[in-house]
């Protein structure tokens, strides 16, 4: 397994390997770190993110949990209360709802209600997102539930180097962090990158990335929609417009400055995410920018989101409800030509 994790210098690695490296490096660095989740030990995780972890660090630090998301989060909270750093895997991020109370009422509030006496270093991570035919319960992006629960940081990387760097930051953060991994990106060959090791790999939480520079419209997004926005930017270029694509990387904390600076230049905003529209995080970004960057806007800001529906199973249905390159391109053009 060591060869799988470490790899050879100069080789490109995928998004999944990036996360795996970050977890293994942090477990080696921090003897008080524990990993827990369903099937993460003997099996190595449903997607293989924790493959080899239990063999290397033992079953006491890499715990195969019963199918009990509430107990997984709750016991992790207790371990963190008593000095541990805990990585919790949700087998699919959809299943996080079964541990909801333990996350929002127990874990997220701990620092607050103890007036700073206690902090809970915990990362809850798991595969998320649609476009893969996963249907209603294996396709969700439910980050808005948690953005509405004070005390939780929320991360969603779109590239292998961000996945690794943000995971290291999350695992070193003294607060609970929800880490949305895009399972459609796990093994995507086209986005593989060379990765740094240890501290050189760190990407701080709360700092957005300009994925593509442009002057006519700002596309703000995260997760796999970053790649859709980059494709849309190619389309817009054919129409003679240059789009700036901002990958926010972390929802909480949100790097508003980078977005505002971009709007000063482009004067137009489109926000894209694959969660449902109503009370989704796209709406939050629109609201903040409408308030804080109103003077820079030359057109009504727009959003492209999932329809207010669950994610259906078969392909034509799924693509109908999710944001697409075409929908993003079209909305951007409307905004530019307003």
């Amino acid at each position, binding site marked *: 397994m060591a060869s799988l994790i470490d790899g050879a210098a100069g080789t490109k690695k995928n998004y999944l390997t990036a996360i795996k490296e970050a977890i293994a490096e942090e477990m080696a660095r921090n003897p008080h770190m524990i990993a827990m989740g369903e099937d993460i030990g003997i099996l190595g995780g449903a997607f293989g993110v924790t493959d080899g972890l239990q063999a290397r660090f033992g079953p006491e630090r890499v715990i195969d949990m*019963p199918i009990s998301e509430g*107990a997984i989060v*709750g*016991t992790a909270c*207790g371990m963190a209360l008593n000095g541990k750093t805990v990585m919790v895997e949700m087998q699919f991020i959809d299943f996080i709802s079964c541990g909801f109370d333990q996350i929002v009422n127990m874990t997220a509030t701990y*620092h607050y209600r103890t007036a700073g006496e206690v*902090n809970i270093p915990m990362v809850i991570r798991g595969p998320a997102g649609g476009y893969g035919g996963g249907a209603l319960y294996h396709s969700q992006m439910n980050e808005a539930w948690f953005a509405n629960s004070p005390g939780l940081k929320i991360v969603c990387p779109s590239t292998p180097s961000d996945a690794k760097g943000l995971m290291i930051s999350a695992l070193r953060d003294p607060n609970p962090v929800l880490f949305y991994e895009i399972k459609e990106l796990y093994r995507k060959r086209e986005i593989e990158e060379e990765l740094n090791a240890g501290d050189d790999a760190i990407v701080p*939480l709360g700092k957005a990335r300009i994925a593509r520079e442009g002057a006519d419209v700002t596309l703000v997004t995260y997760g796999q929609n970053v790649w859709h926005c980059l494709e849309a930017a190619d389309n817009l270029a054919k129409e003679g417009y240059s789009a700036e694509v901002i990958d926010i990387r972390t929802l909480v904390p949100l790097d508003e400055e980078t977005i505002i600076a971009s709007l000063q230049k482009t004067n137009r905003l489109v926000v894209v995410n694959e969660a449902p529209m109503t009370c989704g995080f796209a709406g939050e970004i629109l609201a903040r920018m409408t308030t804080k960057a109103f003077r820079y806007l030359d057109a009504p800001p727009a959003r492209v989101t999932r329809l207010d529906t669950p994610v259906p199973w078969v392909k034509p249905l799924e693509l109908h409800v999710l944001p697409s390159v075409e929908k993003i391109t079209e909305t951007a053009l409307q905004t530019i030509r307003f």
Partner: protein
Amino acid sequence: MATKTNKNSNEQSRPRDLLTPQQMREMLTQLYLARYFDVRLIKEKKRGRLRGTLYSSHNQEAILVGSLFGLKGTDWISPIHRDMPAFFLKDMNAGWRNPDRIGMTIEEVCAQVWGKAGSPGRARDNWSHIGSKSKRIIHSTSMLAGTIPAAAGVVYADRLDGGDAVVLTFNGEGSTAQGIFHEAINFAAVHKLPVITIIENNQWAYGTPTHLEYSLEDFARRADGYGIPGLIADGQDVLDVYDKVMMAVEHARAGNGPSIVECKTFRAYGHGDHDDDRAAKYRPKDEVEEGRSRDPIAVMKRQLVALGHMTKEEAEQHLAENKGAGEVTDIDFPEEVVAYLNEGVQYAIKSPLPEAEEGGMWVFKEVE
């Protein structure tokens, strides 16, 4: 299951047999203290010196005193709303005013009840929603049974670090219907964690009687489903609670894992003081009379006299038992008990309110 198969030998040699007469008398004093805390708060509220809902532990004090009495200071506890005295009863035997005691001071607990800055949580959440990492008390939420998984996690971490701590979680029988109750005890059983789940079966979950909560005669039987011991204690009898909890503690400390200890008792008044009047109507009168008929203070006194650890005259010196909060006065309690509470109440009254700006603080810990 050792505690079950050894039943006969346990009856010959019980944990209580190692208690000195002095320790048993201290147990009675602690019962008085828990009772006085309860009635004093009711009086303070009636005098207009205190706001907020009170959740009485009246008639259930033997469960708190009996289960906490034999713990080490380094053990953890996880009390809920009806266990307010547990915060200061923890590690009480190290000396009520001992600054090194691993339990809360009466000042801290009273400051919390009064909603003052002197509260360990600076009054950010109400009533029993306090705790202390250094005092090894898990901070509860309003979601019942919600802290049992944290309790399991705490001792999992402790065991990894080479500790021998056990954790006592306190729960009403009502909370046992929560899914998280099952999830947490199942996990604790799988890993043989030293988690002792105390069920204070007081017959009423707010306004719902037990026959609408679960279909077992003895709740402790649910332990069979987890492959762990389930013990039943007379919740009015502090020595019986002590025996059963200490058997569970010894079982856990020996590495044999969790137990459930069901303490049968009765909720003397309403769910909270806001519910007292309605509880008098929705609960049958004879059931309430019967439920209140074995006051734990009276039960303990009879035992002390029978054992020769207390004279009848001494037992009758203070008569708090079988009296409601409106009927007792300070002379019904030992002077040391009243004095201790006075210190807490005076501190709480003098402690300032937290600064308003604190409402916006401590959402996140700053990254160093």
